């Protein structure tokens, strides 16, 4: 059987990305359906992630699937010493598809090699988080009307932030210009800058963060400095408040400029910005629902054509 698992979108073609985004758009028009009636979706969260789990479970539930799984690794046999393979093989007996979040890097790739059912990677350590990337692309396309030729500013933790790394890779098809804004300790790793050069992606690196710098942005992608990715807490304390976005930094911003954030936010976006036309992070999370509906369906072999001709829509 063809392996339909989604481990990473790093190798996805431009066509495949646009195809999945179109599918997500269909789900936004009609999110409630019975197209997965009779299917069982397992969500295995070996690392807790409330937001991602709720989004996947809602995505599956609104398409009529039943959801099984666990939200907290403490309740699983992993704590008794069971291997990942054994857990995956066991759950494969019950579910048609497994959505998995794991704290170890490469766990999703390995699971997809041993599992008889498709695996959807909901994040594996600091490695890949493809559904987040899909929803980021969906928000960018939706707010800008296109993915092509955009000025995208990545701000904050560019070293450990896997969402910015994945976004960078996925955007290579669309002729973007990136601005990397980060303190030295959290600068974009050299390997990704090499990647940009090899793929003809233009980028500017700066430590400046003010109204002038932000005035030609189409997208400002803010990130949280994640405490859990630091081994050195002194370093965390030093850099956590480096780049905070304030409302008075937006007076020169383009009308079309939108602020994205993978959430949860701590303090990196001033709360008063929520009420401006530039704030888009909550709608972005809503788009995650449709992006994940598309990813689940694609992994189960349901095509865009099937979705356009779907007779199970609940109006």
């Amino acid at each position, binding site marked *: 059987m063809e392996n339909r698992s989604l481990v990473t979108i790093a190798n996805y073609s431009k066509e495949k990305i646009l195809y999945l985004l179109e599918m997500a758009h269909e789900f936004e028009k009609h999110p409630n359906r019975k197209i997965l009636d009779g299917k069982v979706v397992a969500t295995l969260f070996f690392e807790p992630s409330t937001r991602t789990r709720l989004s996947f479970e809602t995505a599956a539930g609104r398409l009529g699937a039943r959801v099984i799984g666990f939200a907290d690794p403490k309740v699983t046999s992993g704590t008794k010493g069971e*291997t*990942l*393979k054994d857990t995956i093989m066991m759950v494969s007996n019950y579910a048609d598809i497994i959505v998995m979040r*794991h*704290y*170890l*890097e*490469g*766990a999703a*790739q*390995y699971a997809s090699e041993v599992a008889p059912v498709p695996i959807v990677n909901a994040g*594996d*350590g*600091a*490695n*890949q988080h493809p559904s987040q990337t899909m929803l980021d692309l969906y928000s960018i396309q939706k707010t800008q009307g296109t993915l092509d030729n955009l000025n995208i500013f990545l701000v904050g933790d560019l070293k450990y932030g896997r969402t910015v790394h994945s976004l960078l890779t996925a955007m290579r098809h669309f002729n973007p210009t990136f601005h990397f804004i980060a303190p030295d300790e959290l600068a974009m790793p050299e*390997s990704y800058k090499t990647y940009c050069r090899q793929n003809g992606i233009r980028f500017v690196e700066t430590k400046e963060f003010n109204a002038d710098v932000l005035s030609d942005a189409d997208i400002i992608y803010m990130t949280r400095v994640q405490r859990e990715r630091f081994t050195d807490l002194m370093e965390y304390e030093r850099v956590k408040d480096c780049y905070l976005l304030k409302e008075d930094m937006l007076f020169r911003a383009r009308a079309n400029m939108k602020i994205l954030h993978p959430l949860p936010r701590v303090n990196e976006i001033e709360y008063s910005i929520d009420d401006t036309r530039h704030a888009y992070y909550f709608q972005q999370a809503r788009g995650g629902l449709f992006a994940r509906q598309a990813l689940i369906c694609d992994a189960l072999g349901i095509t865009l054509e099937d979705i356009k001709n779907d007779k199970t829509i609940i109006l």
Partner: protein
Amino acid sequence: MKRQELQVAALENGTVIDHIPSSKIFEVINLLHLEKAEASITIGFNLKSKKMGTKGIIKVADKFFSDEELNQLSVITPNVTLCIIHDYEVTEKKTVCMPDELTDIVRCPNPKCITNNEPMKTRLHVVDKEAGLFQCHYCNKVLSIADAKLL
């Protein structure tokens, strides 16, 4: 020219792995699992060498390795010479070349990689042969083969 006495006895049939840096000889033994072999094996250690100062040599009687097995050696000793012997004559000389993929030979250096936490084989793909850079198939970390630790 008078032929000097050989430092290690000649082989009737089998494989000679020559020009092994002395410090790497035990790694070569481990990598080819020679400690489990039943063939008679001569191991020379700290032998004099014009090219290298001192060198190691391994002669394995009546055993011919596959290219795949021998190419694994490139990970630790890229410059070894291999001689295939039939009836006391060298019938073939080979050098090793870096394979495109290393399966279960070296450890991924990332402690958070699934391969270091699950009973499974490691897999690394070559990224840059000349620079000796490999990438973990699972966690995508890139490592230099010079820093690689054998399993």
